[in-house]
């Protein structure tokens, strides 16, 4: 159930937002970088959640859209001098074109559930292999963007402050977009499709169209995240950006926070990113150098959260803190 925020919830939301806007005044570079990561995962998690949490279509290949968004915008910048504010539109166009092909193949030929997920993985992997061999895009050696610290925001060149506020704006924008979509006819059609396609059809819903809309919006948004990471990290390697681990990272925040909820991806990102950072710090402090130790603890923590809060942390948090409108 998607309860809207009550006055108390809205107050808390505004408080958190104000604190995040003010945070650069006190936060050091490290904390800023962690917050940027949180915003990034909240953003792409939101994009993925539209497709899975709302429309019920499992994608395990969202790294594809991140990578395409990053590569398209970086290439336009490096080869033609076209800045990311313009390049982002090309990035969205290319990513949604891929999304359209995957969606069309899957939904037209009745490839559903885990088989659809396999299709999304296959596309991400094929694209990774392809980019490994495209010399124009640097092949396996990747692309590098020159680091320039003095701010040129119109080219997305600058220090942490620029990226901090951009990431915050992206995360907040995706939150607003999701909250709005959830209250439109399309949003309700997605829920119907997720719950029961046959019943949805009987109510006159064009299921193919509703699913395609979800894939297009989700892939386009994710490509925006890709543009952000490319210009934030200043490098792109096929083996990194298209890797299936990137796709898994994207889905964790919404799964932990609460699938199909507006605030789930945000809450999930605020839990998981600091958890990862804390585990890194802890293993370093304890002097454990064995590879995979951090991953083991991270996995255990995930298991504990999911066993304790299978519907996600947000629905529980909203109930305990009484943040949403209570209905009898």
């Amino acid at each position, binding site marked *: 159930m998607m309860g809207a925020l009550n006055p108390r919830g809205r107050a808390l939301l505004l408080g958190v937002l104000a604190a995040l806007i003010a945070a650069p005044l006190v936060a050091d570079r490290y904390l800023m970088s962690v917050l940027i990561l949180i915003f990034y995962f909240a953003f792409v998690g939101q994009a993925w959640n539209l497709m899975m949490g709302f429309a019920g279509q499992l994608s395990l290949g969202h790294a594809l859209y991140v990578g395409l968004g990053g590569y398209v915008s970086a290439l336009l910048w490096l080869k033609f001098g076209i800045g990311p504010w313009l390049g982002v539109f090309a990035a969205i166009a290319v990513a949604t074109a891929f999304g359209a092909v995957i969606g069309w193949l899957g939904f037209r030929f009745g490839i559903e559930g885990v088989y659809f997920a396999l299709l999304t993985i296959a596309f991400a992997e094929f694209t990774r292999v392809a980019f490994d061999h495209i010399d124009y895009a640097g092949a396996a050696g990747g692309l590098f963007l020159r680091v320039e610290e003095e701010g040129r925001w119109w080219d997305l060149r600058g220090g942490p402050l620029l990226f901090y506020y951009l990431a915050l704006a992206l995360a907040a924008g995706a939150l607003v977009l999701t909250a709005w979509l959830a209250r439109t006819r399309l949003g*309700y059609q997605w829920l*119907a499709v997720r719950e029961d396609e*046959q019943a949805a059809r*009987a109510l*006159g819903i064009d299921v193919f169209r509703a699913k395609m809309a979800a894939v297009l919006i989700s892939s386009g948004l994710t490509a925006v995240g890709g543009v952000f990471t490319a210009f934030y990290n200043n490098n792109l390697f096929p083996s990194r950006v298209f890797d299936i681990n990137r796709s898994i990272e994207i889905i964790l925040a919404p799964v932990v926070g609460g699938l199909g909820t507006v605030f789930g991806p945000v809450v999930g990102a605020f839990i998981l990113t600091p958890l990862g950072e804390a585990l890194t710090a802890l293993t370093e402090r304890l002097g454990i150098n064995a590879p995979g130790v951090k991953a083991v603890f991270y996995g255990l923590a995930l298991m504990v959260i999911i066993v304790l809060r299978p519907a996600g942390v947000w629905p529980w948090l909203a109930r305990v803190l009484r943040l949403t409108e209570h209905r009898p």
Partner: protein
Amino acid sequence: MSLLAVDHVIKRFRGLTAVDGVSFEVAEGDIFAVIGPNGAGKTTLFNLIAGVLTPDQGTITFAGERIDGQTPDAIARRGIGRTFQLVRPFPALTVEDNALIGALLRRSKVETARAHAQEVLRRLDLYDKRHQLASALTLPDRKRLEVARALATDPKLLLLDEVMAGLRPAETDRMVAILRELNRDRGIAILLIEHVMRAVMALAARVLVLHHGAAIAEGVPEAVVRNQAVIDSYLGAEAL
């Protein structure tokens, strides 16, 4: 002019003829029942009308236009609402959101659709339960929700697949009263598949009896239940 015309429709499944040349017409504002023993082809006939299946032969016409072979969503948009024999409400959504999704078929604004959904829920005695999850409802309530959701799409014709099955007599009478009201107040035509003869006798103006996929009798209910072929194949003598 008839609202729905089924004309010599045939549907075969690997040699088994599930629906064998069935023809009938439902007039506007009519309540029409299809009865018959299990396996007579009632649900297949329903799925042919609702677009889940395509007839091998014959035509189905709704409001003057051919609908056989169209998709279920296109048929719903034309004005045929349906329920499922095994109810399939959207389990993780509230009762109100279930009805709201139906109402959104002909309303693009969510708030307008919500008002309509609430009105429909009031008619079906579900208004007080509108904030409950559909998965938490009892079977009679789920059956009512199934009707409410279909009704919220503003159909000209409502296809009801055994909405009385599993209901207690008092609940059956309540459902009969609700359907009668709908038919009277809104002029919605109803085509029902039903085993509960108590409901059929109380509701239907005309009855079609299917047996092994073929129509063996059609007429007013009082005449049909006295038809010897119907008694032999389906009702048995004790029904009288």
